[in-house]
């Protein structure tokens, strides 16, 4: 029988969310002997429950609770109530993620200093450096089993990768490989090697891909110090007269509300839900929401500059076979302003199954221009573009006038591209198309960004409390026993997929929390 903590136990650390941030933090704390309760809004689906079917899996795992959108981004038109493609389940989006695990580059921690004062961009240096984070990157890579680190072999290249690699090399790229992936290339940590199934986004049926669901949380639970409570949707965080947080109120699956007391609360519900929760927790003492004396909660929403390039060839590729994202070009990742933009981007292989290709290749399109592309589905190759987007104060999560079934305002996600994002995307479209043209593509499709998978920045770290929400440990500037433990603490987004950095920060934060608890400072 798994550990259960009492609702009135004031000694526990309560973590909201069980993904890369929350799941890792909870496990680390438990391993350090600290009693921890993770409240997860979604259900617990184990590996055997996952389905190799895009829409069925989407219905099982995706966060489809109401959200609203605004702004000039195309997602607001095509998917007005689905701004993000992320997960509501134990394990969070680590069930769905592709596994790419790249460290940030040194300059990406100090973009205000390196990029300068860019009009419309609310750039800020991180309060930490790459050097400070390196030991935690090492720990994260080891526990996640990242390929091409710790002596772990890279994954073999699939059909989609072979096209990608040949095109990349043909146009002169040198840093081309099957990447650093948190997917086992051989059995490790009690999990098998990748079977090249091709349904990475639907939950890995073999557990070869790292997820907090089966690679972290069970280790925490085994200590007896961790309880993961699924179907526990946190509605608000409460505080006492002194301003310190005292616990949370959550709704269970039947809608009954409970109050879980806590010594410390750590918010890790992703960059849309985390600021929403802080804003929904407003009180007479904190009328603008918790941890929001800076007014930055919900602001600087980043989603990475993304897009895809698909190409059709005169012969079959069968890109859906094998690891979805094991293919990365890093040549464009650096900061080279001569390209007409600051920051950089990665090119990474990507494939969608036929049902999702129909839905996402050109949302809303119809007629033969569209259907002839799908007719060539088996002869398509594809890549995803992921680059640094600019933080903007006006890109933000606010409370919508719409309410959820518990009567709490839902999140509105507002987003406009910065001119730098557009310049970078156009560059990446040209480069991606050139790669495929070099291998003989007969047709290429510069494909619009999907609903956001990398949601970042809405509770950002800052040296000065005036500029952000949390300090270098993810601890809120305003309330010492309130932490943020997900990608919303990112000061800027970098060009790299964020999960490795979220995990590294969570390991580091666990050390800090344990130390502070030991010293009785929180």
């Amino acid at each position, binding site marked *: 029988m798994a550990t259960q903590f009492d609702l009135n136990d004031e000694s526990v650390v309560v973590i909201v969310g069980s993904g890369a941030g929350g799941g890792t933090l909870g496990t680390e704390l438990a391993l350090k002997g600290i009693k921890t309760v993770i409240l997860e809004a979604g259900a617990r689906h184990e590996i055997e429950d996952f*389905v*190799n*079917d*895009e*829409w069925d899996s989407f219905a099982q795992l995706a966060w489809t609770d109401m959200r609203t959108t605004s702004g000039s981004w195309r997602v607001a038109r095509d998917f007005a109530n689905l701004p993000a493609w992320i997960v509501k389940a134990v394990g969070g989006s680590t069930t769905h993620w592709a596994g790419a695990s790249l460290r940030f580059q040194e300059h990406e921690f100090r973009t205000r200093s390196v990029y300068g004062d860019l009009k419309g961009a609310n750039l800020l240096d991180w309060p930490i450096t790459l050097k400070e984070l390196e030991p935690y990157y090492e720990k994260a890579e080891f526990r996640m089993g990242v390929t091409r680190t710790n002596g772990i072999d890279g994954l*073999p*290249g*699939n*059909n989609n990768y*072979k*096209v990608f690699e*040949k095109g990349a090399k043909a146009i002169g790229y040198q840093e081309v490989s099957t990447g650093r992936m948190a997917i086992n290339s051989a059995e490790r940590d009690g999990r098998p090697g*990748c*079977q*090249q*199934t*091709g*349904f990475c986004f639907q939950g890995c*049926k*073999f557990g070869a891909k790292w997820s907090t669901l089966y690679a972290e949380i069970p280790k925490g639970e085994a200590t007896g110090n961790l309880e993961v409570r699924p179907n526990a949707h946190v509605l608000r965080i409460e505080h006492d007269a002194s301003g310190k947080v005292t616990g949370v109120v959550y709704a269970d699956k039947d809608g009954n509300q409970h109050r879980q007391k806590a010594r410390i609360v750590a918010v890790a519900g992703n960059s849309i839900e985390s600021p929403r929760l802080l804003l929904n927790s407003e009180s007479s003492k904190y009328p603008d929401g918790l941890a929001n004396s800076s007014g930055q909660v919900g602001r600087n929403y980043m989603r990475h500059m993304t897009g895809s390039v698909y190409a059709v060839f005169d*012969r*079959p*590729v*069968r890109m*859906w*076979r*094998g690891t979805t994202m094991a293919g990365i070009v890093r040549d464009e990742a650096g900061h080279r302003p001569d390209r007409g933009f600051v920051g950089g981007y990665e090119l990474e292989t990507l494939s969608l*199954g*036929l*049902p999702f*290709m*129909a*839905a996402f290749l050109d949302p*809303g399109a*119809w*007629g*033969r221009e*569209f*259907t002839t592309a*799908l*007719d060539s*589905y*088996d002869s398509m190759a594809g890549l995803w573009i992921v680059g640094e987007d600019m933080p903007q104060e006006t890109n933000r999560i606010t409370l919508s006038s719409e309410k959820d079934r518990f009567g709490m305002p839902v999140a509105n996600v507002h987003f406009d591209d910065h001119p730098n994002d557009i310049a970078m995307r156009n560059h990446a479209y040209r480069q991606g198309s050139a790669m495929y043209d070099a*291998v003989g593509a007969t047709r290429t499709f510069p494909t619009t960004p999907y609903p956001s998978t990398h949601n970042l920045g809405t509770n950002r770290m800052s040296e000065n409390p005036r500029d952000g929400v949390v300090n270098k440990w993810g601890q809120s500037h305003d309330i010492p026993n309130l932490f943020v433990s997900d990608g919303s603490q990112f000061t800027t987004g970098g060009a790299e997929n964020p999960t490795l950095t979220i995990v590294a920060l969570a390991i580091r934060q666990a050390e800090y929390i344990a130390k502070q608890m030991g010293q009785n400072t929180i």
Partner: protein
Amino acid sequence: MKDNDVSLSRRSLLKNATAAAFMISAGAIINPLEAWGLEVNTLKPETMQTLIQMARDIYPHDRLADRFYAIALKEYDTKSASDAGLKSLVEDGVAKLDQLAKDKHGTRYVDLGWEAQRVAILREIEKDPFFQKVRGGLVVSLYNQKEVWPVFGYQGEAAIHGGYLHRGFDDIDWL
């Protein structure tokens, strides 16, 4: 579609045959070439026939038989039984489509001989809630049929077969 969805005598089929590939009877449409029929209980059978043509014009795949479009649209008939708003959206939408076809060419939408003629009419209504509803539903209900996937080469579920590690994940031979 099950055979017992439909039972009609040969005589009534022939009597009700239209110029198109479909035969219309009270309560059903029949596709004799593909040997299937679809019961239509709530909508007019002619409406379903038009919807099928419209669906093919929205997402034309010459290697997909009509029955896949019919399966994708069947829910409009079943759901209309309990949703009067949906029923009128569809009936009124199809009526408008036919009116536009008659104004321009003097014939029903389904009787227009060229896809380009029909598409030109669809372009006129593509902002209408009716069109948006049909297209938005179809992009899931057509492409999410497992029977459709082999036509596109897509292989669907893979874990039960052990993934592609030993089934050609890297078998590209023309690079």
